[in-house]
């Protein structure tokens, strides 16, 4: 019978059905970082358990690391204590750690793919909701909490309930200036922040097929913002080319065997889905959020909805967002003044993201009132960007060029908004307080749009800026 990738991966990893009716699922790759794991390792210690499959477990440090001065001990003693705990836990339990200063260090969802650890057909878990990113490779990847981290460390398994699959087809060519980030924000806007609960999202269609792995990762990364714990793209030639030659990828004759197995895990052509939704790519514009959840967004040419524009159930949240953000209902989003511009996060901190932002920034100056920073997703991304001179492009324009980490996306390190600052951000959440200041405000958009906003000092349509830049070149 024709099956979806989700079903094939689920079946291949099923250990047994538990007495509760849940399925015991084997986890093929467990990624570990400093924030959600110290209590889990302590639980193992208390019970005298080892890490069952240390060779399937990899750790790095990303959430709390400073992106300027990484000298030890950190100025933040609690952060120092967390990193020291991870170092001790990895040492005691035999888990490889890509620590600060290691060439493999970076945001966990950036390094898994770039090291070739992330592969099609795997189950992947990590104590972080953006683990859905790895679904771009045709893996079934999802975020878990600390008790489940303990379960995976101890048994390499989780007790799970089956998921439905919604296929999201995106068809046609994106206009210049419209990116993967705009596609996923548009999907979340239409299906809502809880539309995906109970579902895996399978992204398909000609637009997705034409995307690079970086773009597919941006899409899958934000599945959770639409309520879907899992999002994936079927593996294809683009996937296989990306993986080949990476440090942990199978090599030689193994690669051919692996490729055949990966291919066999893709959804069958006539697989049946629980649901299907179609999006028309050419009709999309750059998207900007105006509110307090990632579904509260408009096209850059649009207006901030009034209470009358939204369904009954969303009116209270809409009013709350207007007040918190300081936006007039019905006003244009274009022209909203910003104080900070942030290019980074597991959503948009890869080399292609930095290239797109740099293309907008080149030869320009950040507006005088704007503090702008670029935080590469990993040490490796950072070095590759520097090899192309992108760091110079950003620095000359007035951006700060930082070390790798999660940084301002969630403000767990020294990079935070202060007071009511408004931030144009390539990250994934515009929740109240998300960027480290309880009253700070976040506008989510693509890296190119962040770059354009940094230069203009306000939200602008990157398509106009890019047109001007092209015209200048022609002159």
């Amino acid at each position, binding site marked *: 019978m024709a099956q979806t990738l989700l079903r094939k991966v689920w079946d*291949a990893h099923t*250990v047994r059905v*538990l*007495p*509760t*009716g*849940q399925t*015991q699922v*084997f986890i*093929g790759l467990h990624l570990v970082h400093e*924030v*959600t794991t110290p*209590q889990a390792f*302590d639980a193992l210690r208390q019970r005298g*358990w080892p890490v069952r*499959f240390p060779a*399937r477990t990899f750790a790095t440090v990303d959430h*709390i690391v400073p992106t300027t001065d990484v000298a030890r001990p950190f100025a933040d003693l*609690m952060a120092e*204590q967390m990193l020291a705990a991870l170092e001790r836990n990895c040492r005691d339990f035999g888990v490889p750690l890509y620590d600060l200063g290691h060439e493999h260090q970076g945001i966990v969802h950036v390094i898994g793919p770039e090291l070739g650890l992330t592969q099609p*057909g795997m189950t992947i878990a990590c104590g972080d*909701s953006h683990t859905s990113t790895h679904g771009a490779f045709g893996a079934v990847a*999802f975020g*878990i*909490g*600390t*008790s*489940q981290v*303990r*379960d995976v460390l*101890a*048994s*390499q*398994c*989780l*007790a799970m*309930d089956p998921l439905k699959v919604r296929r999201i087809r995106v068809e046609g060519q994106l206009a210049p200036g419209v990116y993967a980030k705009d596609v996923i924000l548009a999907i979340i806007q239409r299906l809502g922040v*809880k539309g995906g*609960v*109970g579902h895996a999202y399978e992204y398909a269609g000609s637009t997705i097929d034409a995307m690079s792995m970086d773009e597919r990762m941006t899409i899958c990364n934000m599945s*959770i913002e639409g309520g879907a714990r899992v999002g994936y793209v079927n593996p294809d030639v683009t996937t296989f080319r990306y993986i080949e030659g990476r440090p942990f990828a*199978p090599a030689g004759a*193994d690669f051919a*065997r*692996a490729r055949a*197995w990966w291919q066999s895990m893709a959804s069958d052509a006539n697989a049946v889905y629980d649901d299907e939704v179609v999006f028309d790519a050419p009709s999309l514009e750059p998207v900007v959020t105006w509110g307090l*959840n990632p579904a509260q967004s408009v096209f850059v040419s649009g207006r901030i909805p009034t209470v009358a524009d939204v369904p009954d*159930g*969303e009116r*209270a*949240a809409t009013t709350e967002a207007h007040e918190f953000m300081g936006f007039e209902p019905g006003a244009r989003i274009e022209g909203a003044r910003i104080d900070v511009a942030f290019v980074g996060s597991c959503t948009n901190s890869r080399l292609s993201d930095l290239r797109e932002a740099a293309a907008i920034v080149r030869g320009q100056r950040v507006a005088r009132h704007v503090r702008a920073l670029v935080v590469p997703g990993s040490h490796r991304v950072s070095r590759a960007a520097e090899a192309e001179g992108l760091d110079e492009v950003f620095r000359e324009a007035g951006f700060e060029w930082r070390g790798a980490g999660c940084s301002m996306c*969630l*403000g*767990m390190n020294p990079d935070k908004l202060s007071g009511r600052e408004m931030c144009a951000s390539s990250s994934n959440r515009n*929740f*109240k*307080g*998300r960027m*480290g200041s*309880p009253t700070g405000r976040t506008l989510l958009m693509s890296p190119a749009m962040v770059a354009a906003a940094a230069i203009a000092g306000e939200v602008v349509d990157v398509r106009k800026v890019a047109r001007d830049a092209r015209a200048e070149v022609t002159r």
Partner: protein
Amino acid sequence: MSALRIERISGRAIPVRGHDIDTDRILPARFLVSVSFEGIEAHLFEDERADARGTHPVDQPQYAGARILVANRNFGCGSSREHAPQAIQRWGIQAVVGESFSEIFFGNSVAIGMPCVTVPAEAAAAIQAAVEAAPETEVVVDLVAGTVTCGTLTAPATLPTAARDAFTSGHWDATGLLLDDVAQVEATAARLPYVSGW
């Protein structure tokens, strides 16, 4: 490992109104910089409480000692941080009643023995109103009967069968179950080419 059976939770309730209350609101990320969950409940809804200047339900004396939290739609969305349900539980909550929950929050709550039961939207609103009017009202969450009772109101409370059975059989702490059959785990791993070798 046999854990505690959880069948029925009763006590006073605390209403927390609003849809899409995310885990950054429940527990802002800056309070995750710690190697233990101890004392985390002090920061439950910290920024929301500061905003509300003492009027947040968590700061209202009539809700002190509540055992049941009554929420609305998509409660606990956002980050996978278990710190959010941990803070709620450590504050004294033993069950959450709501119109719907985010999946990761729900799973984390199961893993720590705090059932999140779903009731119709009107029932969640009615219970919140009833508790606001009379905070001493006893609310009963009965997992076996599948109901939430608040004064004269009884609403159907749903919980996926597996989660309900996990609570009522005392198997909600899954680690023991997952370690029951290590041979089968090894056998599953051996069948996966990327584990056993290409």
